[in-house]
């Protein structure tokens, strides 16, 4: 039997515990590796190039939104019979992306999956930025955006209250709660690391700004005790929250009577799809980021391998849901439902349906092969295809169902406009702008958490913990 190479932690060997951090990292070097990214006086030119492109695209998003607000929603492709076009497709797509971040940071934390520590910080950041991108779409596509505060229950001279028994209002409540809790969770976890940056700061400005956001953290035993409790409780709260958010989003569809939407499988199906797409986005971001910022010893191949296994697992769940949908359409005996699915697979949007099935069900099966799970460019390619497939899934659900519902005389096709395209592309710009700023100025890896999982023989050993 050949010895396992020291720098390969993807091999399952029951006689040893695979290291979570590679190389000869110790407490100081973990800090040094993570902090120096945020402390470089000038990031490399390629960062500026990426940032310029992202900012330009974000500008395109804002220009499109501004034009939309000033002119009216007629500038979008939404029209009879497809009144929910790309804005809702993009909204569901982005909100789904966010779910993997919460899965990694909260659910894996509760399950004591300690490998999560290296990737949870930027997975959470991804959640937050994805929720920000998602929030843009429902807000601007309501038409008179300046009256959007009508959604809030406040006493008003119209003597009206919002209807709390509407899925659209549940959506508002769920998304805003999700955004708030994700932000709190992310920020709370980052306070000790911000204090590290504060203590290493060499300029007065950095010291003041990091100091302000570190809130005076000193790492005292009392603070750590409260911090761990608060973090554990937030994780315990975020776990049911993340399951509820995409369930509520699916109610927007499932509670309506449109064939293809009115089905009880939607909540679990949406949650599985959300985690699937989010894990793919984590891999899409992690593969270039770890190579680019020199984090290969912290975000190891084992992390990516685990993420790819998650993608494979959720891909099977999603494929199962597609199958059950088709089965229900046939077994349910409802002619409209049956037609909706025949129309998806064979109708004018068949290309979208089969693209979705290919990207989401067939392509991820490559992850059964170990070589595909551990080769960066292959997993990156698969992850990008999964992102495409998951966008297509929402497109198929929304557009093909609305385009051909009960009354053949009101069937129609959906045609996106330039504004639609600009808003979709621009939302990626916004996402990457925020992500690049995060990489540049904030600790990308949860240093304090990684230090707690270092092997005991590296420098000062952490207290042995049995749990």
């Amino acid at each position, binding site marked *: 039997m050949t010895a396992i190479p020291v720098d390969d932690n993807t091999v399952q060997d029951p006689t040893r515990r695979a290291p979570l951090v590679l190389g000869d990292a110790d*407490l100081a070097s973990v800090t040094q590796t993570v902090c120096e990214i945020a402390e470089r006086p000038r990031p490399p030119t390629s960062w500026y190039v990426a940032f310029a492109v992202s900012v330009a695209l974000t500008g395109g998003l804002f220009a499109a939104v501004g034009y939309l607000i000033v002119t009216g929603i007629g500038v979008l492709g939404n029209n009879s019979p497809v009144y929910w076009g790309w804005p809702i497709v993009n909204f569901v797509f982005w909100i789904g992306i966010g779910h993997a971040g919460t899965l990694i940071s909260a659910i894996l934390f509760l399950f004591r999956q300690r490998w999560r520590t290296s990737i949870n910080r930027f997975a959470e950041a991804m959640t937050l930025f994805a929720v920000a991108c998602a929030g843009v779409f429902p807000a601007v596509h309501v038409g008179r955006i300046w009256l959007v505060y009508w959604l809030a229950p406040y006493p008003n001279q119209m003597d009206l209250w919002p209807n709390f028994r509407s899925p659209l209002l549940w959506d508002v409540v769920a998304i805003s709660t999700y955004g708030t809790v994700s932000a709190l969770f992310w920020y709370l976890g980052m306070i*000790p690391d911000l204090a590290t940056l504060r203590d290493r700061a060499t300029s007065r400005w950095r010291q003041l700004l990091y100091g302000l956001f570190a809130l005076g953290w000193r790492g*005292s035993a009392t603070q750590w005790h409260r911090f761990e409790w608060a973090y554990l*409780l937030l994780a315990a*709260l975020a776990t049911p929250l993340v399951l509820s958010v995409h369930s*509520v989003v699916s109610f927007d569809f499932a509670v309506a009577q449109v064939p293809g939407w009115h089905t009880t499988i939607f909540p679990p199906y949406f949650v599985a799809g959300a985690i699937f797409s989010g894990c793919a986005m984590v891999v899409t971001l992690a593969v270039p980021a770890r190579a680019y910022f020199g984090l290969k010893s912290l975000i190891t191949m084992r992390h990516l391998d685990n993420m790819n296994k998650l993608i494979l697992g959720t891909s099977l769940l999603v494929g199962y849901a597609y199958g059950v949908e088709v089965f229900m359409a046939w077994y349910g005996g409802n002619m409209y439902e049956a037609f909706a699915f025949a129309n998806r697979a064979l109708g004018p949007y068949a290309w979208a349906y089969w693209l979705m099935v290919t990207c989401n069900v067939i392509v991820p099966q490559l992850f059964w092969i170990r070589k595909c799970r551990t080769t960066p460019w292959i997993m990156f390619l698969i992850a990008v295809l999964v992102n495409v497939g998951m966008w297509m899934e929402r497109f198929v659900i929304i557009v093909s169902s609305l385009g051909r519902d009960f009354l053949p005389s009101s069937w129609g096709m959906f045609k996106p406009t330039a504004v639609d395209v600009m808003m979709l592309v621009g939302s990626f710009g916004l996402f990457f702008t925020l992500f690049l700023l995060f990489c540049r100025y904030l600790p990308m890896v949860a240093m304090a958490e990684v230090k707690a999982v270092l092997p005991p023989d590296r420098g000062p050993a952490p*207290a042995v913990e049995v749990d």
Partner: protein
Amino acid sequence: MDQAARETDSKQVAGLLAEFDGPQALKAAASGVREAGYTRFEAYSPFPVHGIDAAMGRRRTLLPWLVLGGGIAGGLGALLLQWWTNAVDYPYLISGKPWFSLPANIPVVFEAIILLSALAAFGGGLALSGLPELFHPLLSCARFRRATTDGFFLGIDASDPQFDESRTAALLRSLGAGETELYDRPRTEQKVPRPLVMAVVVAACLALLPPLWIARVRATRSASPRLHLVSDMDFQPKYLPQQSSPLFGDGRAMRPPVEGTMAVDQRGDDPHLLRGEVEGQPATTFPVAVTSDRMKRGRSRYDIYCATCHGLAGDGDGITSQLAFEREEPKWVRPLSVHSQVVRDQPVGQLFQTISDGIRTMPGYSSQISVEDRWAVVLYVLALQRGRHATLEDVPTELRRHLDTALQGDARTPDTER
């Protein structure tokens, strides 16, 4: 030693800081310091050291109870909000379901529980940790900066009853401390510059002006139209009556009728029939034949168009009016009773004009009721007035016998007999 070389004012000393090798040494030292009778000390580490709370003799935090409280408050609050707004204050009828149906309220209750618990966990966690605390003596101690990277420190506060600079330092060294160092309170109290304070005060006062202005506007009346921040569809690019337009030769936006245009009911020019006028004065006679059939026709039109406000008997107590009073509609004007002296004194022509053109808040009915039918309604109104104010003498002698039996026989009134 550092502290010996330094000139220290004992009042300036905030505490003593000692560095240890690692988490195990720190834990042992914390235990030792506690056994020596110290109470005001704290251990600092770059990551949580498990078991150190027990070594320091610290109790568990109250935080879980705070979070439970937040969750209960969120759940009950959301339930109360939905019940009050959707079942009591503004009941929503949704597909005939009960006003308050719990299952449909669960999603919002659930989200509110999570939101308030999470806010309690975050806010409570920070507050119980004494954060934010942007100024602390330790933060100005250069050595301590390694506490967030790889340093393990024990700090004993100078306010501890057991604290003594040399004895405490000796104790810490006996517990395995590498370096010990006294740390000071900040020498000068850093004060916020006075102009900055003034600027903040002035800005805060100015910030109160907009809400005060809004409150004043909300509480008072104004004759000018409301402000339009966003005009919505109040102002549309279209021509209104009497506006000018460069599109037409005569400069008017309103177009005169095409030559030869005739009004819908312009039969000849009979002011008596069409406008209820005789020589410019309200007519006192009917321009149409007064017959029993016409009166019955008038009753059917009256019951359709007039009775909703004026009441079936003309008392001004129709169902719309009753409802308006019940709801305390501020702009509602009670319809006149047709039996009031003012109305009874009016000539038929004036009644006709009121029905045709409307009066006060009553709209005109010329577009809905034809000319003949309007005269029929006038006739029926006269009949109502006559019936209300009739005496026995008005009843023909040969019919008075029926009247007696009718009054004695049952309680039927002429109204219900219709």
